[in-house]
């Protein structure tokens, strides 16, 4: 079966942690549930949460901390 992905809904700058000194929201290989925050996107002086739509194992991130992302871009792969 094909892997599912988690998408950024907004364009902006991608971060995996709530603040520079904090732990990441999730690490690769971790189980997530639908609605869990896995990252944030900075846009218009606000941070907007990137959430998993469904449950699964977050296998890997497709973008790095501090990368620019577009609206609708895949940012992580979600597996079983």
């Amino acid at each position: 079966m094909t892997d599912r992905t988690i998408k950024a809904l907004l364009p902006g700058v991608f971060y995996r942690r709530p603040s520079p000194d904090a732990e990441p929201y999730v690490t690769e290989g971790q189980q997530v549930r639908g609605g869990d925050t896995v990252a944030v996107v900075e846009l218009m002086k606000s941070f907007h949460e990137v959430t998993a739509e469904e449950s699964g194992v977050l296998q890997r991130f497709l973008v790095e901390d501090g990368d620019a992302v577009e609206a609708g871009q895949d940012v992580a792969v979600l597996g079983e």
Partner: protein
Amino acid sequence: MANSGERAVEIRKPGVQATVQDYPGRSGMLRQGFFPSGAMDNVAMRAANLLVGNPQAAAGIEVTLGGFELRLDADATVAVCGARAEVTLDGQPLPIWVSRPAAAGTMLAIGVSPGPGFRQYVALSGGVDVPELFGSRATYTMGGLGGFQGRPLAPGDRLPLGAPSGDERARSFRESARPAYGREWRIEVMRGPQATPDFLTEADMAAFFDRSWPVDRNSNRTGIRLESYQFAWARDSGGVAGGHPSNILDNPYPVGAVNLNGDLPVILGPDGPTAGGFVVAATVVHGALWKLGQLRPVGDRVRFREVTPDEATELDRELAARLTADSLDNV
């Protein structure tokens, strides 16, 4: 149901930021400390109003990026103009720049815009009838004034609508009259009020006009941030006004100022500050201000083009000529 007789719409999803805006906003208030607010892209707002039979000045909803939904609680003609996006009425596609009468209960949805462009404008026949504050219904986001309760819209907000004109038809704003959007913008400016020779060198201004400036993620209605650049500057310091040569004694800022905040250019948007102590290297001309509303943070780039006063006047005249009922076709 106290409001059962009132025409209204209910906000279901506001998206990143949706506000009530009008045109030209709260003008004439600079000396009282108010930038004008109003539609950041006044062209799309005015076209949307024309399409639904409203005066161009009527209040509508400015949507940022998309991801927006509202429900009509009354029959109304609706139009969405601006950044490309999938728009639907009860699931049926509604092209942007096109109006359609819709019945009470209809859901209007705007998808997330893939670009080009960054904002959409929703016009509703009769206009959004929130109270006027100092002559305008525009929301001033930084001041928390005007619009609907002085704030961006939230789910469940009910916006009252005014009386429609009765001239409500499915119409299209002619393609040749629509503004061109892209990812590389040319924005017309006039030099100054603080440029060469007192504040910046000729080489600085040449770089200013040559560069393709990226639009920073932290751009909003207050200002469009670009990217730091090491200007040479005509002075060693700001003298009594401060250590950096971008510093001047506090003075009023024009709408559309390209403010050099240290070495960081920021274009002041409709909710910007009315005064401050940084030089303004150039000022966006009136007929190009609409472009500020469509600059998409992260990805879009800006080049400034210097124009003469005559060219600036001509731009404004061309825009006004396109924004008339002559640009509408029945569909």
